[in-house]
């Protein structure tokens, strides 16, 4: 599977266990090679049961990526393992969705902690940002650029055999259903602006069998850990996968449904019998967890960090898209008194070139000229740090509102 270079290897339906009978195993074995975007993507592009369903930034388009979509894989033809280095088959990378870790990959591993290479003032300021802002914040300003992803999945609506799915198109994407009788109701997103949160590398997780606080409006199955006051935390972009899932009303644990029928005689599989109770009973039994027989639908969020699909440097967010204060008349020259040869205003007012997203999203123009990419107040600032000071620097630069 991992070292197949022919692309013909596949597993029998349910995509697990034995290889499909039709595969020419001899041919596959004779052509083994390094893992590739294709072999890794076989699993990792399909998180959630299909292409780009859950991952915000991994999808089948990365087999032949547009350089604008992913500069590493598209422009420089990187394979996964060139960043996710392996040691004795342990593959580096810390996923936000799955807890197991066998090494961490950071942009700085290649780009260093001072990744902006020039020695201009701008480079200096950008490098200073690196201790507070994750690289992806600026360099992956939108996620799911090239393949639409699900951003809402309501399991509770599943089973309505009469409901006809409405087909949606996002930009020039193919038509996407908003409903599937087996799976429930969806919302799709494309070139979505991420949610930003402080993140120090650790994730809070609900593990199977954990009881949750049922009084909460939203159950956060995974959520980033980090505070503004935490020096190791940086503002990091996330896709929040939202949806409705079932919890055991008495044990307050997440319920696992049995979905895929084992065989033609299966009476409990939801996708055959459409009976949640039987499905939960069977699923929880398989997981060796208690099931009380009563369930309750709750909204759940899982945070998926946006880390792939880095855009070319020319498409990174520019200063003014977060720092609305720079959009005013006085810009960098608030501090830099002598103008020298730099046109500060032009520099500050420059906005990102999102023309690449034209056919991917309807409101590209609006996105391009937004100056509120990061909601500083939500992240614990009083407002734009240029005005109110950074998290460890009490240096209000310029016109601090009096009073």
């Amino acid at each position: 599977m991992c070292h197949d270079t022919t692309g013909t290897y596949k597993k029998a339906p349910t995509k697990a266990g034995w290889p499909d009978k039709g595969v020419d195993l001899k041919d596959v074995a004779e052509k083994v090679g390094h893992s590739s975007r294709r072999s890794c993507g076989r699993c990792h592009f399909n998180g959630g049961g299909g292409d780009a369903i859950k991952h915000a930034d991994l999808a089948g388009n990365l087999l032949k990526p547009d350089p604008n979509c992913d500069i590493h894989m598209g422009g420089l033809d990187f394979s996964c393992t060139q960043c996710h280095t392996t040691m004795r088959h342990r593959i580096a990378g810390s996923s936000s969705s799955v807890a197991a870790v066998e090494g961490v990959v950071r942009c700085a591993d290649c780009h260093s902690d001072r990744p902006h290479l020039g020695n201009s003032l701008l480079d200096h300021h950008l490098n200073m940002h690196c201790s507070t802002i994750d690289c992806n914040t600026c360099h992956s300003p939108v996620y799911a650029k090239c393949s639409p992803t699900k951003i809402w999945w309501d399991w509770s609506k599943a089973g309505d055999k009469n409901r006809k799915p409405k087909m949606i198109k996002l930009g020039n994407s193919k038509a996407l259903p908003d409903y599937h009788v087996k799976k429930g109701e969806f919302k799709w997103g494309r070139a979505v602006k991420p949610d930003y949160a402080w993140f120090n590398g650790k994730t809070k997780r609900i593990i199977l069998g954990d009881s949750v606080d049922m009084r909460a409006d939203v159950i956060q199955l995974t959520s980033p850990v980090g505070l503004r006051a935490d020096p190791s935390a940086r503002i990091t972009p996330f896709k929040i996968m939202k949806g409705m899932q079932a919890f055991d009303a008495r044990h307050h644990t997440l319920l696992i449904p049995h979905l895929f029928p084992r065989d033609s005689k299966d009476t409990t599989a939801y996708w055959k019998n459409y009976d949640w109770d039987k499905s939960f009973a069977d699923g929880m039994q398989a997981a060796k967890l208690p099931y009380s027989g009563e369930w309750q639908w709750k909204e759940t969020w899982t945070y998926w960090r946006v880390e792939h699909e880095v855009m070319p440097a020319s498409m990174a967010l520019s200063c003014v898209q977060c720092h609305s204060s720079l959009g005013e008349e006085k810009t960098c020259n608030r501090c830099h008194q002598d103008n020298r040869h730099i046109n500060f205003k032009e520099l500050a007012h420059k906005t990102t070139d999102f023309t690449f997203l034209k056919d991917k999203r309807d409101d590209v123009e609006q996105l391009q000229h937004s100056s509120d990419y990061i909601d500083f107040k939500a992240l614990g600032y009083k407002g734009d740090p240029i005005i109110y000071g950074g998290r460890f620097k009490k240096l209000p630069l310029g016109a601090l509102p009096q009073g």
Partner: protein
Amino acid sequence: MKRQLFRFRAVIMLVVLFLLPSLSMAQNSDTSRTLFSQDLARLRAQEVVPMVDKVKVEGPIRRSQRLHATELSIKDAKTTYFLLDSPIIKAQEDHYAPVRFNHGQHAASSGDCSVCHHLRPVDNSSYSNHPETVRCSACHQQSFHPDYPERLGLKAAYHQNCIPCHKKQNAGPLTCRGCHLNNVPEHKQLVKLPEKPDPLQVTAECLRCHEDDANDLLHTAHWRWRGASLYTQDQSRQVDHGKGTTALNND
């Protein structure tokens, strides 16, 4: 002869460079990637420049001073990305996939061209642009050259420049595989399987040579669907989490 060959190659390169923008403009954006930086780098890697006969030997400090005096700086590094895949090395052996070399990154972090470009050719006529910083392969070509016994071959020049510095700076890749993948040997001859083998036969055949790898694999998170979860809040001491245990809905 060599020089002629070089000129010929240079002409081809120029043609390619001129055609490049028009090509990418002519086609839609989906195929513009066909000749993006990687392809350029690939073409550049194939060039073989004429060998420099004589070099100017001076101490590292004097060299550094002179480089500064020429006002040559990092900004002059036009090419930021190289693929190290020279036919010079391949002529002797071809065991490894090309190495990505971020020239810009290295130039910026060292801040001093003379760290790597430690000598310059005495005769600079054929390098009218930047005689001070000719590429590695201008001096370092064939290993054990009978006429230049003290001169390292290209491969050794790379390694002797890269490895000690990475170790000293404790930065960048520190292992062999950090820089280059090895080429997978042709398995057609190695694999001995009957027609239509059953999966267990295939596994046994793989294990014939790769038993250690198989053992390694059995301990990985990708096999066990569990593993150390060091970055999970309050569970960093638990070592048995993974897709098999998390509450994500995976069907």
